[in-house]
């Protein structure tokens, strides 16, 4: 069935039936074009939402001490609840499902930090090593705080890139001693963060060192931990377990709403996940709809084409064409046209996405980096080609089976 001469006959037929070819080609190219643009836009929307939630999309639970509001076992309400290192150890060791955990000890106000003649005032955060998982801290040089820093009360510091820039200009900061409120701390790492400018002006120091240096005893202001793969319900169980355990330690009623503030970001995270899933589903539903419309369009055109060619098929048969050669003629033409048109639609769609993504403002937060999975686009093109073949095959075979005399009689 495949021969150079056969293809000449097909190309000749295509060249001389421009309208028919153009219609088929257009419906295929349009279908693919729309699909690519749509999938790309969906991806852009998804990226935009992801970007907006980039710093909060952490499945974490934050615990903060409060003030009791209910009397408990003879104790008056209004007592403050102060979290301590013991609470940190309890949650870390006894609550099932905790992934990464850190405490935070607050140092009020900004402190003066100096290196040589350069000074600046920066926010100091006293934390445990696993803090970096909760804020998505990215270490760009050196290392983050480690367990030895905490256990040995080392005076080490990890500084934000803005701090490094302010104190060291272009010089290397690692290993240098900076003075925080007059005390020398060694810079062991530099970090960046996607959360915004303010995050980059922070300095992390070991929580234990800060407690000792700034008269913090064993106090912690916050304990926060991530919940790993826990579902919303599981995370709520974890939050309830934390409340129950701390209520026993700190002597307050479990039902006291003010004694402890527990904020569960998993809820938020879940909502975010649902939003993303919603967008994906939406894009796919419309995408499948587009493809189906394309399939119906191609099928329709193929049926019309075969009907249109019934007489020609009859003539060809009378002149000695076998049924197989008729089916081949119709289908090869269809595959040829659909393939080229599909490729054209694909290219046009990709170009539109490319142009769009170049012209988007860099800080656009709703729509970012529209892109399409090339594999998906190719599969869609193949699907349309297959639809053309199937839709062409049935009427082509029927037409090839008609006795030539009947085909010729049909006017």
């Amino acid at each position, binding site marked *: 069935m495949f021969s150079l001469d056969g293809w000449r006959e097909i190309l000749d037929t295509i060249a001389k039936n421009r309208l028919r070819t153009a219609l088929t080609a257009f419906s295929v190219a349009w279908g693919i074009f729309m699909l690519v643009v749509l999938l790309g836009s969906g991806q852009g929307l998804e990226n935009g939402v992801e970007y907006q939630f980039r710093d909060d999309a952490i499945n974490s639970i934050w615990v903060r001490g409060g003030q009791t509001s209910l009397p408990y076992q003879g104790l008056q309400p209004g007592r403050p609840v102060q979290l301590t290192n013991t609470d940190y150890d309890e949650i870390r060791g006894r609550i099932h499902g905790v992934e990464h955990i850190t405490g935070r000890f607050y140092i009020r106000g900004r402190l003066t930090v100096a290196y040589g003649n350069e000074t600046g005032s920066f926010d100091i955060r006293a934390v445990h090593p696993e803090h970096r998982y909760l804020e998505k801290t990215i270490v760009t040089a050196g290392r983050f705080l480690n367990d030895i820093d905490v256990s040995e009360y080392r005076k080490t510091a990890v500084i934000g890139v803005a701090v490094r820039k302010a104190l060291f200009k272009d010089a290397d900061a690692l290993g240098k001693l900076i003075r925080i409120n007059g005390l020398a701390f060694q810079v062991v790492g530099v970090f960046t963060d996607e959360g915004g400018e303010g995050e980059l002006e922070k300095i992390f120091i070991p929580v234990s060192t800060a407690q000792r240096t700034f008269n913090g005893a064993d106090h912690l202001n916050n304990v926060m931990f991530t919940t790993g793969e826990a579902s919303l319900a599981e995370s709520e169980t974890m939050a309830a377990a934390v409340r129950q355990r701390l209520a026993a330690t700190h002597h307050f009623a479990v039902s006291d709403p003010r004694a402890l503030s527990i904020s569960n970001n998993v809820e938020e995270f879940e909502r975010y996940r649902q939003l993303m899933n919603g967008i994906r589903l939406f894009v796919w539903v419309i995408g499948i709809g587009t493809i189906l419309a394309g399939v119906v369009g191609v099928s329709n055109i193929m049926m019309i084409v075969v009907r249109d060619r019934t007489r020609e098929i009859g003539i060809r048969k*009378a*002149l*000695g064409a076998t*049924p197989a050669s008729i089916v081949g003629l119709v289908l090869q033409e269809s595959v040829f046209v659909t393939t080229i048109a599909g490729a054209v639609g694909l290219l046009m769609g990709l170009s539109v996405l490319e142009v769009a993504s170049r012209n988007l403002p860099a800080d656009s937060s709703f729509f970012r980096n529209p892109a399409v999975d090339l594999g998906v686009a190719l599969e869609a093109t193949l699907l349309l080609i297959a639809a053309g073949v199937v839709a062409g095959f049935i009427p082509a075979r029927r037409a*090839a089976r008609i006795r030539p005399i009947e085909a*010729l009689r049909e*006017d």
Partner: protein
Amino acid sequence: MIDVRGLNKTYTIGRNRLHVLKGLDLHIGKGEFTTVMGSSGSGKSTLMNVLGLMDAYDSGDYVLDGTLMKGLGEARAAHYRSRLLGFVFQSFNLIAFKTAVENVALPLYYQKVPRRERDRLAREALDRVGLLDWAAHLPAELSGGQQQRVAIARALVSKPKVILADEPTGALDSATSNELMKLLRDINRTGVTFFIVTHEHDIAALADRVIHLRDGRIDGDERRPPHV
């Protein structure tokens, strides 16, 4: 050339069975110029389809050029059509988007004749019907008589043993019809057997032999001295 014995053909349309050809016997010798006449429903179109290998028959034998044509599959029938038969239709049946020479060359395409050879033979055939100058024209640019001559060239090009023509002059005026019949007679003289279905008496009058069909049977078979 054509040998038909006891040919039966029945069409089933819904519940009705229509017995169209009722035990037909027919012998047509090589080089004969035969016309078949008959009113509509006499079975002449059916006979033409069976002889043209475009329709199967129920019983009897049909021998064409020494080969028994029985129970042929579509592909075999297509093969014999392309080797032995040429067709001329009332409505010309040229492919509208192909030029005259491309239309004429089409049967050779299905015989797998190389492209250049096809073109040469097609031009030769067009020359024979006097239309070589019109080779590059589309059917729509030709008159009815010219179109039918292109169709005749197409029937000729594969050098068939038999040309079957279904009312070849039905769509033409009488002057054009006469010219066309002359052309067919000329071709006939080179040894091609003709089998022409017509209902026009003056066309039939030009034939060597006129067969009358009636109700699926041969009702009359006149032979005439060859015309000049």
